């Protein structure tokens, strides 16, 4: 539990820094501060999804229960972070781009990742036999990894044919040093938080398997 406590403290510290010690950006106003939690959320989601994919390959190869349990834990945490991304994203897009949702390539990819992660968890929920559950979810995870480039490609091609009226693309804003350090601190805090959550969820899975009546 110690790591989780440290992680929560780090996140709270980052939030305090964002709220009180980081200047308001002139162009977008206070809404720009959503950036400091929106981007770390999607990056944490990518980290968690990377663990799911990697552990799935390890499980198919070694049939090691721990890999399956880690994939399950990272999958649930990935759903959390993609959900946060998809909720903070539109709230930030509304004042900046004028619409709640745009089929921006990155947002669409995040939406797609949300669907696949949800499918992954529902699939796990629908199977009782631990071995079959491990194998099926691992196969889905590996195939999902293969699909990401196709989604990215087709959505990107689709978007370049119908360029969305992007008023102000906060793509790679050159942040002044003050904001950049806030962003990096926040990113670090959320990544630690992500790892801590996965570990906590892993212990929960261990507890569940231990108490699972044979």
């Amino acid at each position, binding site marked *: 539990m110690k790591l989780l406590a440290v992680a929560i403290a780090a996140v709270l510290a980052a939030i305090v820094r964002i709220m009180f010690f980081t200047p308001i950006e002139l162009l977008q106003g206070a809404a720009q501060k*959503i950036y400091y939690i929106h981007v770390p959320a999607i990056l944490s989601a990518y980290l968690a999804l990377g663990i799911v994919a990697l552990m799935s390959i390890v499980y198919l190869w070694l049939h090691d229960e721990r890999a399956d349990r880690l994939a399950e834990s990272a999958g649930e945490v990935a759903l959390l972070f993609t959900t946060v991304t998809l909720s903070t994203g539109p709230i930030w897009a509304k004042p900046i781009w004028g619409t709640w949702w745009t089929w921006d390539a990155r947002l669409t990819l995040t939406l797609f990742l949300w669907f696949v992660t949800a499918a992954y968890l529902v699939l796990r929920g629908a199977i009782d036999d631990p071995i079959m559950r491990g194998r099926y979810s691992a196969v889905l995870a590996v195939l999902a990894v293969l699909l990401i480039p196709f989604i990215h490609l087709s959505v990107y091609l689709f978007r370049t044919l119908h360029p969305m009226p992007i008023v102000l693309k906060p793509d790679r804003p050159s942040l002044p040093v003050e904001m950049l350090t806030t962003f990096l601190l926040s990113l670090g805090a959320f990544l630690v938080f992500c790892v801590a959550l996965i570990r906590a969820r892993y212990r929960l899975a261990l507890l569940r398997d231990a108490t699972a009546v044979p």
Partner: protein
Amino acid sequence: MTPQPITPDTTSYYHAAYLVAGALYLGYVLSLWWRARRLRK
């Protein structure tokens, strides 16, 4: 004198986003704790 861009007041969106994110994170941590407690029983 270049026209000074007036900074739009978007604090309501800013607060909304942080509340939503906070609720989701808190909700998940609580669910972890609650599920662990139920399993331990």
